[in-house]
């Protein structure tokens, strides 16, 4: 029978995950303000402009507003506060 060895677990210590709820959804987007958040990835602004145009043609009752954070991949608290204060919803893209 092979000798049994005891080895250490090589992984670090992860933070505990605390569940967070999603925001309450609107029944409809009619008459609502939707922020289109351009994440600043290369070509994402063009994607968001097309999305803006899609809403204008297909759901004209929805107001869309394009917005950009001050930097790529950095949380922009000011932008977030503005979206939270004025927006009824947000679409973020494209990218992680």
């Amino acid at each position, binding site marked *: 029978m092979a000798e049994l060895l005891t080895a*250490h677990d090589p992984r670090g210590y992860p933070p505990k995950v605390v569940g967070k709820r999603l925001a309450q959804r609107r029944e409809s987007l009619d008459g609502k303000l939707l922020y289109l958040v351009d994440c600043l990835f290369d070509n994402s602004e063009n994607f968001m402009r097309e999305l803006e145009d899609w809403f204008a043609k297909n759901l004209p009752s929805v107001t869309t507003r394009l917005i950009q954070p001050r930097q790529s991949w950095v949380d922009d608290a000011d932008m977030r506060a503005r979206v939270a204060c004025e927006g009824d919803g947000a679409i973020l893209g494209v990218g992680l």
Partner: protein
Amino acid sequence: MLLEEAGVPSVAVHTNVFAGVARATATANGMPRTRQTFVPQPVVDLSRAELRAYIEGSDPTSGRPFMQEVIEALTSPLDAEDLTGLSFDRATPRLLAPDSEGNLQRLFIDNHWTDYLPIVLPTEERVAAMLKATSHPPDEIVGRMRPTSFREFWEYTVEKVAVNAVMAGARPEYFPVILALAASGSTAKSSSTTSMTNMAVVNGPIRHEIGMNFGIGALGPYNHANVAIGRAYALLSQNLQGGSVPGESYMGTLGNGLAYSACFAEHEEKSPWEPLHVQKGYAEGDSAVSVFFGLRYVQEGYGPRETWQEKMRRCLSAGAHFPPLLVMDPIVARHFVERGVTTKQQLIDWCAANARLPAREYWDDQWVQTLLRPLAVAGVEPYASRLKVAPDEVVQMFEPREINIAVVGGEAQGAWKMFGARYERTISVDAWR
């Protein structure tokens, strides 16, 4: 997810290859039901018409119309799971269940804890021997690390670093250098699609104490200390940050051979110039390790010959937005001195002044667009000034403070290499003895 917390119904759009990463990130944030929709990869370089086709097409992960998913994500009523999120404890055990050598080797590979080469099993005895090489207690927190800016930090102790050092085959005398690298908090296993990794440059008396190579073959793989320290840095990065698994926590599309091990010592004795750690504020008698991030491109040259300036200009301008770490044999450094370049700073200044591209080419780089253009638009210098340059005028690509030089090699050839690598920081090795 921060917008959801602020009460704003949100939906994120990703390209489909990031589905695994996006879902893992949402789960690690306690919000696994975050609304996410997907379009095909790529988005970069597509025309507006092609992007419009994505919008009017289907989500490739679900097969359902993309815009229908977007609208539903913002309007469909929430269920019980949406209202609670997911809480869980991912605590890792200190020790694994006893098993045979073969089964444990297999377990480490199956759990993505190795670089797929055999490791030294971190038994209690081996880890205890490693811990004797530092005065720091096993339970002291060394730092925290994460694979990218949108993932959560994981924390680690001296003992956890020792475990990974054992796995890499490191000898206990290397441990202070490995602890210093862990304390940098800079991961050598970035999840970036660009396949970045890190390089470590060691300076000071520790080079001699642990038998590092700064002569022939220093960049590897021809010295136990160099290779084992570099490998330990790579392994500890992936294991202490919570993984480096393709499709989940690693997205480097090509991969990078330097991610196995990239560590060398500077040849201070043969360099005519100031050692790297002294440039970074340490005394010559201090031992320290400097960390460079990226290693996206490697170029090489010989000399300096008569046309060295033209050659160097071509290499400098080929590197897009990642600044150069110039690594040169002592022969090259001495030839530069003979040509009047008496300090590293002189050559750094020359490189900064001559790393230039027409603005049209500079701004057409994907990463310059993604990372630097927003700063330029926001008025941050020097990027704002670069954005004002006419398309056919040249822009200076790097500031002198971004460029670094290290002298290494065995004088077998007047060779130099240029790595696209951003300087992160220099950490004291002595503080971890």
